[in-house]
Structure formats: C-alpha cells, structure tokens
C-alpha cells in the first residue's frame, strides 16, 4: 500500500498529466460530477458518482468508424483512426469498474471490436473506494465490494490521505511513475475505512434485493409475464436510463454527409426508442411495452443466459435517480420476483 497526503493530490495529477491524458470527475456548472481532462485548477469532485458513466472512455457516445470519398461510380474507403493515446481514468467507482468487464464480454468477443479494444489497451483505470454509498446503490447484489474496488490501481481517501494499491502491471507502472510522491503504509487505515463502509453497505435499503429466478431458465415465463404492461405504462420512451447506464452498449451506425464525403459513425442507441427495430417491412416491437421489456429482459435474463449467470447490471443506481418517471431496474426486478416463484 502506498500513501500520499491529499495536499499533494494536485502534484500527483500534474505528474500523471505530464505524460498521459488524465481524466477525473469534477463538478460541472449544474453541480453534478462529470469526467474532464485534468488541467491545473481542477479539483476532484466529492460527488459519489458521475452522471454519465465511465463507459464513454472506451465506448464513446459517437465515434467515427470509417470515411468514404466518392467520385463517379467509385468509392474510396478510409480508416479515420489515428494512434490512440495512453490515458488514465482516475476516481472510477467499483460499479463502473465492473461495467468494463461486462462491456468486454460484448466488444472483445469474437470478432473483436478493435475501436474498443484499442481504448481498453491504452487506458489505465484508477478506482476510488466509496465511503458514503447512497440509497440507490445496490452493487453488493452483484458481488461488487465498493470498499475494495477493482481496476489497475485501487485508491482510498481517508481524512487527509490518499492510499493507493496497484493490482495489475499497468497499475504498477503508474505507481512507479508516481513513486517520488508516494510513501509506504496505510493498510490499517484502509482496513478501518473498509469496515466502516461495509457496515453502511449492510444497511442499504436495496442491499437485499433478490434476483432469484432471473436468468435464462425462466426466459419465456418472464417474457410472457403480464407485469410488463403495468411496469411500462409510465415509460415515456426516452433514452435516459440507457445513456446513463454503464453497461448499455447498443449502438447505431449512421452516415453523415460532410459535403466532401461520407463519414460513417456509430453512436449510442436505445432499445427504448421507437425506431430501434423498425424495418422496411414493419416493427417487431410496436409499443413501449415491448421495448421496455427488451431492456430489462436483456439485463436480467438474456445477458446472464449467455454469460454464466452474470447480470448486465452493476447496481450503480443511475437509472434510479435519473429516470423521468422514476421507473427502474429495481422496481422491475421486484415486480418480477413473484413471477418465477
């Protein structure tokens, strides 16, 4: 375990920022946390988590895939990518750290998505342990310990000290870079903080959320449940839950005519949107009920069916606080609980 006085936190940021792009949560104009590229004067946000998840860094909201130049009947295909720079993502919470491994299962599965892969290879993830979880948190349901977050480096902030522990070779490299600022020690302080945090975790209102019976075995039973009509009745069909979700990864591919050529880009898409599955011959999901069902079935049933029971949710609670009509995965899971008994 390494430690650093918080007074020197900015020195640490400056040191890392010298060699690599450093991103960390800072408060935005509306007082919410958002990842920004560090520059002198920025301070680490005290908020529990960012509004947008950290998935942006590996799977950005829009990303150019390929450029085309057209002349007469011919087409030229241009790969627009430049070399990916190394970057450090500081202050990622345990839930978001888990989300990367969920995204990996999609994007790194054969055939590998090289756009995503390159960002994953060049990113170093520095996680930060939670000390004040909120009522919307339920990461523990998925076996995540926010007091011991994963990532290349794990950090704890206690009183006036930052404690750091490297978990991977990438993490070792980062701590070696920061070595001039760091000193040894802090195991006891970290253990004490973890014990305190875990006692709060046990008291979280959603800590006992049961997902028994979810997963592939009850696919058709859950799909045909008549609860969906009731659950989806308030849904306004926006993409808020999808876009703040750290594990939602559906995307659209669109062409943009720049006047000079065509830029094909991909952008986040939402299965909650009415045109998500619309085709020339019709739409298999005609009402919001089907679209709503798809999102939650995917997270609670389809994804675990394909991934040894791992759910497509990390319990970060973003959809709980952001849904315009206060509908969310917890309410869905609770309503469906009775269906599989």
């Amino acid at each position, binding site marked *: 375990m390494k430690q650093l006085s918080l007074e020197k936190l900015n020195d640490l940021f400056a040191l890392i920022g010298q060699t690599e792009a450093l991103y960390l949560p800072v408060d935005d104009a509306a007082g919410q946390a958002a990842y920004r590229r560090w520059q002198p004067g920025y301070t680490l946000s005290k908020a529990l988590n960012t509004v947008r998840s950290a998935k942006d860094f590996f799977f950005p909201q829009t990303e150019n895939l390929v450029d085309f130049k057209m002349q007469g009947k011919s087409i030229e295909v241009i790969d627009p990518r430049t070399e990916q720079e190394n970057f450090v993502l500081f202050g990622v919470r345990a839930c978001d750290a888990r989300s990367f491994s969920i995204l990996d299962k999609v994007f790194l599965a054969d055939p590998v998505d090289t756009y995503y892969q390159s960002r994953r290879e060049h990113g170093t993830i520095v996680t930060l342990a939670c000390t004040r979880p909120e009522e919307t948190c339920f990461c523990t349901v998925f076996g995540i310990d926010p007091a011991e977050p994963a990532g290349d480096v794990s950090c704890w902030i206690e009183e006036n000290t930052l404690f750091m522990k490297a978990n991977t070779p990438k993490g070792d490299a980062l701590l070696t870079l920061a070595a001039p600022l760091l000193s040894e020690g802090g195991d006891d302080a970290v253990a004490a903080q973890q014990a305190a945090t875990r006692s709060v975790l046990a008291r979280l209102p959603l800590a006992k959320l049961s997902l028994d019976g979810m997963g592939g075995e009850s696919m058709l039973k859950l799909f045909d449940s008549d609860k969906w009509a009731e659950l989806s009745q308030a849904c306004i069909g926006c993409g808020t839950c999808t876009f703040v979700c750290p594990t939602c990864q559906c995307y659209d*591919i669109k062409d943009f005519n720049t006047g000079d050529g065509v830029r094909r880009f991909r952008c986040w898409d939402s299965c909650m949107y009415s045109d998500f599955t619309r085709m020339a011959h019709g739409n298999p999901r005609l009402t919001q009920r089907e679209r709503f069902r798809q999102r939650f*079935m995917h997270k609670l049933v389809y994804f675990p069916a394909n991934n040894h029971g791992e759910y497509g949710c990390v319990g970060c609670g973003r959809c709980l606080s952001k849904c315009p009509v206060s509908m969310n995965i917890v309410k869905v899971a609770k309503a469906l609980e009775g269906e599989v008994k």
Partner: protein
Amino acid sequence: MNSETLIPKIGVVTDIRIDTPDVRTFRVVGLDGKKAFEHMPGQCAMLSMPGVGEAMFSITSSPTNTEYMEFSIKKCGCLTDWLHAMEVGQQITIRGPYGNYFPVETDLKGQDLVFIAGGIGLAPLRSVINYVRAKRGNYGKLQVIYGSRSKEDLVDYQEILDEWMADEGVEVNLTIDREEEGWDGHVGFVPNYVKELEPDLKSKVLVCGPPIMIKFTLAGLKELGFTETQVYTTMELRMKCGVGKCGRCNIGNKYVCKDGPVFRFDQLDELPDEY
C-alpha cells in the same frame, strides 16, 4: 473473418438482372475482379452505399459459384431504392459473411430436401438449392415449392425453367396467388399447395417467405405429420453491426446476425415470440 469487421470492402456491380418489377439481382465482385469473400449457403452480407444506408442481404448465389456473388434484392426502402436505380460498374461497399448457414454439410447431408419459398423468400434458398444441385450426389430427392403473387413476381423464373426443371431428381412446383392469362400452372397460396403436394415425411424442409406464409406453412407441415426438428427457416431483423454487438437483432439470448439467421423451428420455440 476480417478483424476490422466494421470497415467494409469495395464491391463492384458487374451485372444487374431484372427479375420482377420490384426485384433485381446484382452480381458483385471485389476490386480485383474475384469474389469478395467465401461464404456458405444461407449466410448474409452487409451491402451499403455510403450516405444512403447499409443493410443485411442474404447471398443468393451458391458458394460453388467461384466467380462472383449475387444478391436478389426487393425494392422496399431507402437503400434498396438506390440500389435499384444504380448502373452496372457502380461500386458499393460490402462486408461479411455474417451469420450461420443451413447445415448442408451435416444435418442436411444425404437427406431428401423440400424447399418452400414465397416471393423474395426464394433468395436465401436459391443459394442452398444451387449448392445442393452442384453436389448432387450428397443429397437425396429435391423438391422446390415456390409461390408468388403472380407470374411476373416469380424471382429467378428463367433459372427455374432452364436449369432446375431440367435437372433430374428435382421436382419443381410453382404456384401463383391468382389466376392469370398465360399461366397454366397451379393457382393458390403456398401453405395450401404444400398440403396438397404432401411432401415426403422423411425429408428435411427449408422454408423462407413472408412471416404470415411461414406461420401457415409450418402449421400445414405439422398437420401432415412433420415435426419442428425437420424444418429450417431463415430470419430477418433490423441489423447494424452484423456481429452481435449493436443489440438490434437481439431476440432472447440470441442475435439473429450471429446465431442466426438460420434456425430450426424447435430452436425458435425456445425463444420469445418477437420476430
């Protein structure tokens, strides 16, 4: 497979055949004049015109055709309108092959095969039919039951007359929805025709066509005594990536682009009814 799967190759359209008033068959080769890639019958490819759109089409030519690939495309949206308007020599983009294929080298080998198609649904089956015809010795009897709205809507009509009907051991049964002048063949819907023809219960069946036709055909086959494990179909849903990541063609825990498009009906039974 190309590891940069989202970056397409250039395909050159070397021939455009007008099949029906709204179906054309496009012959495509790579820039080097050879096939852009190899495939198996039932697999698909993403064709696109940058700025217009990109969509998944089944490859209608047989893998045994070593010179080019063909796509029979019905005019029904932005991209297909554009494709129908283009001229020979036009470059388009192509990526693939995507999806699984009819089990021609395993489950279907040595079997009697019945192909049932409606309208443009013949497109994916044509690839299998020609594959099987090319490797005739590996399969038993072949029966093709194909129907369309009218005579002029029969896709690949000339090929059917000149080649399939001329083949020994291939029985071709054509039908159209309504009586018309110059047609002395069968008149009626495909599902009813299938029941009339009573295909051999030992055979494997490959069905493709509009959803409603598939539904009634399957019901008819069951009445005749076929089981779901004997019947294969190929599906179509909106797709963007083609590699099971963009989430669009997700049904249950399957992705039609990657785990499909070919499914056996007993496999479909295990999936939510959302197609």
